[in-house]
């Protein structure tokens, strides 16, 4: 709590001193998404990037997460959907 506060404060004062959270994806080969999933995420144009993370998840960065169609995702076999801040959405695909 303290640390977060201090970090925010410090960053506000000296913007270049604090590295932004490194979004270094674990380099997994880009797999192509099934078309029904792309459609449920609002189409190719809404999709900025995607990567497999944390064993069960597909992390997608979207331009507009309001365009996510949760029931269509479910119909496409996605077990769970987690919409996070900043256009990031996790699709829970289960353990292989």
């Amino acid at each position, binding site marked *: *709590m303290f640390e977060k506060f201090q970090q925010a*404060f*410090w960053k506000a004062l000296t913007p270049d001193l604090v590295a932004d959270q490194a979004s270094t994806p674990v380099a997994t080969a880009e797999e192509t998404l099934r078309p029904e999933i792309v459609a449920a995420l609002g189409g190719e144009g809404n999709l900025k990037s995607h990567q497999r993370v944390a064993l069960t998840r597909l992390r997608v960065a979207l331009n507009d997460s309001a365009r996510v169609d949760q029931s269509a995702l479910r119909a496409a076999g996605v077990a769970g959907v987690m919409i996070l801040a900043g256009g990031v959405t996790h699709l829970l695909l*289960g353990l292989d």
Partner: protein
Amino acid sequence: MTATSSLELLAPLSGVLIELDQVPDPVFSSRMIGDGLCIDPTSTVLCAPLAGVVSNVQASGHAISITDDQGVQVLMHIGLDTVQLQGKGFTALVREGERVTAGQALIEFDADYIALHARSLLTLVLVVSGEAFTRLAPASGLIESGAPLISIEHNGASAGPVLEEEGEALFSSPVTLPNANGLHARPAAVLAQAAKGFAASIVVHRRQDSANAKSLVAIMALQTVRGDVLQVSAVGEDAQAAIDALAALLAEGCGEAVEPTAVIDIPVVVEASSPTLLRGVCASPGSAFGRVVQVAEQQLEVPEFGSDEPQERASLERALDEATQALQRLRDNAEGSAQAQIFRAHQELLEDPSLLEQAQVLLAQGKSAAFAWRQVTEDTCALFERLGSSLLAERALDLKDVGQRVLRLILGVEERVTEMPDDAILIAEQLTPSQTAALDTRRVLGFVTVGGGATSHVAILARAFGLPALCGLPAEVLKVPAGTQVLLDADLGRLHLMPEEADVQRLLVKRQEQRQRHQREKEQASEAARTRDGHHFEVTANVASLQEVEQSLTLGGEGVGLLRSEFLYLERQSAPSVEEQAETYSAIARALGPQRNLVVRTLDVGGDKPLAYVPMDTEANPFLGMRGIRLCLQRPELLRQQLRGILACAGLTQLHIMLPMITQLSELRQARQFLEDEALVLGLKALPKLGIMIEVPAAALMADLFAPEVDFFSIGTNDLTQYTLAMDRDHPQLASQADSLHPAVLRLIATTVKAAHAHGKPVSVCGALASEALAVPVLLGLGVDELSVSVPLIPAIKAAVREVELTECQVLAQRILGLENAGQVREALLDHQHTTALQPRVLEN
């Protein structure tokens, strides 16, 4: 049992249910820890599945267990291998011992951060107390947070009390814990599982703490860390087999891959205390003979409820005001900068809005001002202490102290004045800064405390006053009657309660001689430091404040050889502005004047010297991480701003800028480029001198390549020693060997000097070695041009220079370079000191 009741556990998270068998981590899927369920979360707040008490929250915030009144214990573990995040991404919302209701929020987590940085977010919900349960939720699919998850039948049988085995306990030899993250869930489970295989009752010990080895949660609650020394004890028939097996298991890492650690042959070297001899840890060197004064904390009576809210509010605000003023007076009258800084920190604590806000809430509930204030300070202290860093734990003492000060003002209670003899040795559980400030330090000969460590205030103040101090004594020291004559030998970590007359006499004679020598050295402090054969050496000061600069000038300092610029960045919430920096550097430059040197070292912080507000990723080994120039080049604006601040004093003194932790030539070149850029912006024609610290062996070995590109070298012997010998100077077993007089370190100094002189560049030594009188002959003999020393030691080092002959030192230094170890070097130097002390003093004649 006839009355069986059932307990329903609620889903702690929303998410996708997963069978425990499927979880790709054998510790969980094998049900070694306990049976339960797994949820892949879609919500980010972990809530209590049942009402009960938080029996354990891991410091890293990724695991928590709740125990209900019937003894049902549920462990929740967020993610797989998340212990490695070391708390990042997790915020605990409750604390250990707190009673929680079912559904109460326990831990908030940053799902995206964890997904990107840990193996998985799969969250385990496990019944670790072993009751059977039936599943209320489907085997797979989605579940909502708070929905019924499983039902547990209380049967009373499984939670039966552990029978205490009678008999003599057997102890294993000490084991140093090799696990990088201590005994967290996984290794703790392996250990508990193994312990359950024995009939004996088994306990794991760490210092004074202990835990039932068969209880996973108890082991986790020990919050062990790597390097902790553990012992296993057992009572019962198979006790010997149990301790053998478990000690071996602990040493192997309890199923985790670990780096091998050295086996400890000798049990930890804290000698046992005896009734007349108590042992502790040296916090400030020296020795003293005096009478005991026990300093006890004042107990204050606090009414819970107040008269009316506005009145209580006014009373709190008035007390805070008065306390701030009192602290200002203490700051102004402080006898040293160390003390002034402590009271400044106290003022800042009082200004913290969160304390006041929390107190207002309690006032609104009708509590008295005193009660509300005590409650919030105690809570915040507990928070500091729980965060696990020793640095913060010691700040908790500050908060307690300042809290007590305000409390006294609210209650109108006078501070108790301790009656003191002229030769007081103060004994306390823990001395607070306020207590020490209220003391007449001229009457104090030494400090002895039960708590505290090398960074505690007692240690800082004792060192600032040059008084011996001993920390970490057994609590029985508090029972020593006031007035008892004791011999405090901090160097050896001993407090003699019934000292031998001969020991006392020896000490008194030694002190008398020391005092006379100090007196003589001080009288001659302003004279130049010239060797017997007439060579002049500059003795300058290591400082961290304007006050110290001024003090150094009165003690004969001939300039500043090391200004530790970190002081500008400490104890504040934000980086200092360029203007503030410029003002401070200029004030110091003016105090020194245009003739003297001022060497400013640029910001030298890193994982080992953390600044509260410079966020840094936790490093496995901060000494080999982002420190000094590395950090500054990674965050260039920090360095540029500092250079701008420093350059503001360019015309006022002989300005030198020094870069710490230089390893590569490219670092020097990049920093020089910054300096030239900033000088150009300011329109400076002449650049200040730019030099580097030699503290990494690489820089010493490449000094011939660095020399043409610098204006000077300054050798930081503390870091150079630990990097050369690969020994941490604070390591409990190695500290005594991490000696800067090791021939390897001296050879690096010789290499550096040779390279510098070949290019006509001067070399100074600013590390602790320069402040050691014994080392002066070898440093001068190796060709060092200047010694920069800690302020109080300036007269002693100047005196040491005056005692030697340079040509003799050169011969001695060459001989020393061929010796085998630091012990031999010290012996040679002691011999030399004896022979020179016997020679007549040329200068005095």
